[in-house]
């Protein structure tokens, strides 16, 4: 009995220092399979399309429901999460590549540390600790909460950095994701108390100014976050902040 086969062409790399190479795989088709279940099948039986035994393909995954951002990779030329990439909706052969904007650890696994470092740099949190109970913070209007929820959907998956022409080895641009987080935390009534610190952080080298308005980020974001609106709003905020910094302000 002949079963339908699914063909994969995977960009592999043994370690961060070695050169990448292509390897083809053919695995039996199952209904409703996604890229991750296909990779699991390769892991179960690591034999390539030529019938040679090989090492299992390495990739990262977490939630399997497109909220953790760990399983991002370039699938048929577009960066996206492999958990929601359904094999039946993809053109074959399916090409899998790592998001090369990031350092490749092995095969499809990449190191997204730069994104978490950027979140620390821009102070993407709300300081609430004190030496005594500070009491409840100001209330947030429900309509604003609903709006802010959309920005909070960012899962640091790295797709926007991969799509951005200005995030590369020639530039120190932190990328759209951490910028939008600044807008999220500045919009929070308690977070707004540290608004200036965050604005000054993104006015540093590699920050907001490196955006070239290609707007690939907003087209690529799997969560539909209005990244370019955030960037433009921050452009406005930093315009005022720059004047305040330069001329002084009575607040």
């Amino acid at each position, binding site marked *: 009995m002949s079963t339908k086969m699914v063909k994969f062409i995977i960009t592999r790399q043994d370690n961060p220092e070695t050169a990448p190479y292509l390897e083809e795989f053919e695995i039996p088709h199952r209904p409703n399979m996604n890229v991750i279940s296909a990779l699991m099948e390769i892991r179960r039986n690591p034999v390539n399309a030529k019938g040679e035994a090989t090492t299992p393909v390495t990739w990262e995954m977490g939630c399997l429901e497109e909220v953790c951002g760990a399983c991002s990779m370039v699938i048929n030329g577009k960066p996206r999460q492999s958990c929601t990439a359904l094999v039946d909706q993809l053109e074959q052969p399916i090409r899998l590549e790592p998001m090369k904007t990031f350092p490749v650890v092995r095969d499809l696994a990449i190191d997204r540390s730069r994104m978490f470092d950027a979140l620390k740099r821009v102070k993407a949190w709300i300081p609430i600790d004190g030496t005594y109970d500070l009491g409840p913070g100001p209330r947030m209007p429900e309509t604003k909460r609903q709006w802010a929820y959309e920005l909070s959907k960012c899962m640091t998956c790295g797709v926007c950095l991969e799509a951005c*022409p*200005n995030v590369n080895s020639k530039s120190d641009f932190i990328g759209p994701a951490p910028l939008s987080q600044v807008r999220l935390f500045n919009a929070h009534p308690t977070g707004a108390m540290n608004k200036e610190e965050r604005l000054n952080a993104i*006015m540093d080298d590699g920050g907001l100014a490196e955006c070239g308005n*290609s707007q690939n980020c907003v087209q690529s974001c799997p969560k539909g976050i209005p990244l370019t609106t955030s*960037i433009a709003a921050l452009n406005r*905020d930093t315009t005022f902040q720059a004047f305040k*910094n330069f001329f002084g302000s009575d607040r």
Partner: protein
Amino acid sequence: MAGSKDFVNRRIHSLLGVIPIGLFVVQHLVVNHFATKGAESFNAAAHFMESLPFRILLETFVIYLPILFHAVYGLYITFQANNNVSRYGYFRNTMFLVQRVTGVITLIFIAWHVWETRVQAALGAEVNFSMMADIFSSPFMIAFYLIGVLSAVFHFANGLWSFFVSWGLTVSPRSQKVSTYVTMGVFVALAIVSVRTIFAFI
């Protein structure tokens, strides 16, 4: 400082492209449009412009220094990008690439144009209708000027769009869309003005 060096340079780059360079380009194209009224009107207008008081100061601070900064920093920005239009063929990403390509073409064109007119004027040549008619006697120069001027005009119009974004004037997607239509209208209007002028010399 108001922000880091990158932040300030990027904002100054954006501002200079519109004020004064953009304003100068519009003025330059409009004055040149006198050519459509004949050699005499063009020569009178050109003579008025070149006999403005404090000419060398006006030229230095409104034209030379701003263009020099805009060009040098613009090249730095251009070569920092890894263009990826083949993978992400979205409208804005295409404009991002075209903005960089037209910027480089415009720089080459301006360098040649300044050499051919302003530098020659400093060396004693007279800049007038017949000088331009002479230049346009070669079909190659007509093509070169058409490409150069249209690149410059596009670079200005699309740069106006990103100026509005970079300074936070257009924030919402709708405002950015409206601004796309308005700035492309500016491109078409200035393109008509400049093409009419070029053909007036032929």
